């Protein structure tokens, strides 16, 4: 309490330094803070960070088209699982405290536990993507710029109907594009 009072007193007392000096320090301090904050944020978005806990899932992506393909344009964990715009990203990062808690109580720390919970986790993600209109997919794959003359016949017929009308969103059909599938017994459109 005493410390706070002292701090407040200092903040409300004029400084002997020139106004420009104080303003410059504030500006540079703000710059450094914002840079450090975002660097920290991006560090939690890297593949290495995610594999720290989710290594088996990250391994599954290695055979898929989002990992290695003709053009070399790829997506990593955060491109699909972390929203891009700042406000939604912060909400997701705060939500990640739940994952941290589960990590410490070891909810999926063995293979068997993970297999059991896998369907639940997959459905959560699919539901989230469906609710936000597969926004993470659309960050790269923009429907308005799809060239149907370059797509195969199956893609053209599906994209020009269900996707265009808004009945379906990307994730409704493209489940399993990045990771192996859980039990698809009760999922619409599978078997």
């Amino acid at each position: 309490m005493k410390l706070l009072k002292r701090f407040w007193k200092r903040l409300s007392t004029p400084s002997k330094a020139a106004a420009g000096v104080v303003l410059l320090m504030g500006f540079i301090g703000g710059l450094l803070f914002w840079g450090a904050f975002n660097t920290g944020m991006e560090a939690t978005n890297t593949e290495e960070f995610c594999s720290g806990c989710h290594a088996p899932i990250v391994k599954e992506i290695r055979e898929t088209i989002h990992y290695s393909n003709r053009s070399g344009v790829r997506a990593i964990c955060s491109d699909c699982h972390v929203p891009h715009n700042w406000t939604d990203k912060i909400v997701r990062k705060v939500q990640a405290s739940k994952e941290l808690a589960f990590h410490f109580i070891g909810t999926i720390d063995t293979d068997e536990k993970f297999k059991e919970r896998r369907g639940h986790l997959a459905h959560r993600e699919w539901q989230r993507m469906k609710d936000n209109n597969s926004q993470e997919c659309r960050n790269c794959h923009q429907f308005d710029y799809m060239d149907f003359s370059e797509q195969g016949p199956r893609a053209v017929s599906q994209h020009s109907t269900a996707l265009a009308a808004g009945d379906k969103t990307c994730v409704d059909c493209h489940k399993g594009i990045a990771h192996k599938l859980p039990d698809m017994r009760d999922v619409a459109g599978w078997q």
Partner: protein
Amino acid sequence: MKNIMMALVAASALLFGAVQAENADTQADTNPGGIGGVGSLRGMSEIETTRPADDFKRFPKDHHLESSYVYQPPLVPHTIRNYEVSLNANKCLSCHSWKNAKEMGATKISVTHYVNRQEQVLSDVSPRRYFCLQCHVPQADAKPLVDNNFQSVDSLR
């Protein structure tokens, strides 16, 4: 003086002989009968040489191939990269099952896929036909290795 000369001559003779022996090594001494020349579908290849690897074979993304004989499992005309066929999910059936085929505009799997070994008709795909890729394959751009003048029957040509 004479001894030194003799020693020098002997040493050089030895050296010369050793060099000759080394030359002989690379020719006939390690493979007395020659290198054989194994004949295979890749042509006459020598055992010791490593031939450069062939190019990757490509799968055309969409093309149609006629069946060559009755009961042939039809070739897959489209790309199937990363399509998962496992106990958890069968991507092929997500379009080709009787439930989904109409909506997806795909060929239904034939009734033979619903019959088990005792020729009983089941209510869903028989486990013996569940793993599609055991019979149905896409055609890569691989040329036949041997000459082949197979002709399909008139009704299928």
